């Protein structure tokens, strides 16, 4: 009997101490981490959206943690302890089958895009393997007052009726759009660009001014622009404007084109259509050379024939608008 007490009791005692030191005490201590400056709790609608996020298992494919590694820079600045103060249950995730969502509200701020993408991800990203969340939507004959129908592209839309988001979908998208990183006070680098931010200053380096790199331009366009404007450059009718045949893209004066990429655009009529979704500004996240590569790619693709531009022109315009 004594031997049993020694083995079972002794090992359990050792384990209890280790569990206390490695599990419970760090848990207690770290739970006291104060929120970072500017980190706010979610509104009740956003909090409900977070519950939909959890119950739908979004975090099995999407992380919410930005590591201080080069490959994570596209998702924002490295996560700080204060970012997680209001995040229970934690949703850091263990797998990135889809992209990190820490700053998805900044990277993809279009509510319309989020709705279309949730309804069927392949309607906006053809190669996506994300499940469709059509059950979060209703198909109705007439949209209820105050609810805008989702402009799902024809080949993905139901044969009859309008697609409107359910309250759960509205909450989920409100939550996704609230996912933004608070700028750290001690860092002058803008979010999402610890590395890229250094680039504008060194835009005059030989590599940056060596001209248009078609492969890089296409890769940057795919990563940054194609979710809305589509790989075909045709956009989505009624949701996102086309770049193919776009006046600003084909204008020999690139001022407008550069300005829109750097500073975004909202509420302006393009080809007689006013688009509901704002285009986010990319000035803070992309270097001059990257902006030039993207613009040159757009100006030389899909039958467009705008005059190519250089990183210096981007730098000049950036300086002018500051």
């Amino acid at each position, binding site marked *: *009997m004594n*031997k*049993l007490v020694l*083995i*079972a009791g002794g*090992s*359990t005692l*050792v*384990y*209890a101490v*280790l*569990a206390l030191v*490695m*599990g*419970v005490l*760090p*848990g*207690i201590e*770290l*739970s*006291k*981490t104060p929120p970072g400056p500017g980190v706010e709790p979610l509104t009740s609608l956003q909090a409900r959206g977070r519950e939909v996020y*959890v*119950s*739908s*298992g*979004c*975090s*099995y494919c999407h992380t919410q*943690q930005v*590591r*201080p*590694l*080069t*490959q994570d820079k*596209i998702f924002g600045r*490295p996560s700080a302890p204060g*970012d*997680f*103060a209001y*995040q229970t*249950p*934690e*949703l850091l*995730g*263990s*797998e*990135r*089958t889809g*992209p990190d969502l820490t700053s998805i509200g900044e990277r993809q701020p279009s509510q319309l895009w989020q709705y279309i993408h949730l309804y069927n991800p*392949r309607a906006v*990203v053809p190669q*996506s*393997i994300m*499940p*469709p969340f059509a*059950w979060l939507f209703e198909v109705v004959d007439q949209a209820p007052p105050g609810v805008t129908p989702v402009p799902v592209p024809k080949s993905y839309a139901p044969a009859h009726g309008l697609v409107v988001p359910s309250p759960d979908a509205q909450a989920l998208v409100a939550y996704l759009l609230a996912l933004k990183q608070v700028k750290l006070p001690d860092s002058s680098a803008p979010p999402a660009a610890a590395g890229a931010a250094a680039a504008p200053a060194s835009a005059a380096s030989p590599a940056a001014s060596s001209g248009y790199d078609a492969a890089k331009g296409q*890769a*940057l366009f*795919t990563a940054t622009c194609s979710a809305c404007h589509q790989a075909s450059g045709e956009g989505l009718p009624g949701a996102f404007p086309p770049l193919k045949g776009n006046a600003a893209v084909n204008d020999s004066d690139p001022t407008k084109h550069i300005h829109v990429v750097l500073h975004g655009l909202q509420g302006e009529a393009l080809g007689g259509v006013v688009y509901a979704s704002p285009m986010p500004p990319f000035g803070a996240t992309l270097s001059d050379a990257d902006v030039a590569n993207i613009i040159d790619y757009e100006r030389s693709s899909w039958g467009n024939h705008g005059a190519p531009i250089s990183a210096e022109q981007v730098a000049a315009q950036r300086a002018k608008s500051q």
Partner: protein
Amino acid sequence: MPQVTALPSAPPERDERMLVAVFCAYTATATLWLLFATAIGVLLAYKFGAPDFAPGAWLTFGRLRPIHTNATFYGWASLALVGLAYYVAARSCRTRLYSAKLAWIGLALFNIAAVAGTIALDLGFNDGNLEYREWPWPIRLIFLAALLVTAWNLIGTVARRTTHDIYLSNWYTVGGVLWTCIIAIVAILPWYQHGLGQVSVSGFYMHNAVGMWFTPLALGIFYYALPKLLSRPIYSYALGVFAFWTNLVFYPIIGSHHFLFTPLPWWLQTTAIVFSVAMLVPVWGGSANFLLTMRGRMRTMAHSYALMFIFVGVVGYLVGSTQGTFEAFRSLQEVWHLTNFTVGHSHLTMYGFVTFAIWGGVYALLPLATHKEPSQVGLTLHFWMAVVGSFIYVISLSVGGTIQGLDWLHGAPFIQSVIDMQSYWVWRGVGGSLMLLSHVVFAWNVWRMTYGSGAPIEPDRRAAAAPESPE
């Protein structure tokens, strides 16, 4: 389910019958969970290539994924290992089960928890604490109750042993159940886990729930079944004791290696890495012990599928755990973390090690209990489909996961990593389907060994099967 009470005065045959009935029932229900969990797994694998297939809320990826992992962990592996642990405890202590009634209560509680957990997750009630902590906490309380009942029963059985020593297997099984009770309590208590604090608890839980539950129980099976099958003692009993204590001290510390590069304190992450390396001591020590016990008996091995399963299990333990140490290095984690490589790793360990260990134990011990053997065809089909299937599974995800990680490192657009994975996901599905087929055969084998009519075991094994009389 026979409701029999273990009276101290019960005749030996009756004790024996109860032990066998308990062993059979745990193994049979575990097998049903294995079939269910694998079927869900194959459906999930299929969805990677056909994301619009079965699109409803109840069959969506995000709800089925935790159902697959939790059913595997708490349905299949937990039930099967507890069934084996009971049999090993009673046999190696040369006594009867302390209480068959408690064993039946435990069986019911484990299954109720797994059924309730599955339904809850499918309805969208997810506690949100990845990984395998997703069941709503009242359901995890049921699981904890099952653990406590099991601990009580195992300790009671070992306490009434007629041998002088406590055989090593029972150190691992009794210890594993007791430690897991602590893990379950640490995980359930909600008051101290918020935000970043919960991240650190998740890291702790994630690794302890596998390393202090499945690992010790599976090792306990090795320590009993291997000498039994080979009719020779374990190579070094002292090495087994050494591995027990080092495993106990090192394993609980490595959990935070799941959260390297997060805002968790740097000391916590670095300590986890250091002890991930230290884990090589119990892993290599334990593996060497098993392999040296098998040394020179390759001919016997080739004639016994039970031994072949255990051999694969030992290799899975050695390779999977060593791989885990390497994954914990910051330099390699930069490439592999958050990719499908991790999924390959978890299958190498939970499948290549734990599941093969269970199969080895079941094929070694269940015929001794019931005197019924599965057919040779069934054994052959099960073994080779499982080995080849899991090999394809792990290799495809390891290679694909590496490519995924390199895509990110090279700054390719994110969608490129999804496109590049496609063919590897197809191969994963092929491997997974073979694994599912092998499980159907396993279910047939279990049926023949338990309630069906299997071939009677050979006379020379019958001697080993006879209830060991107290010394």
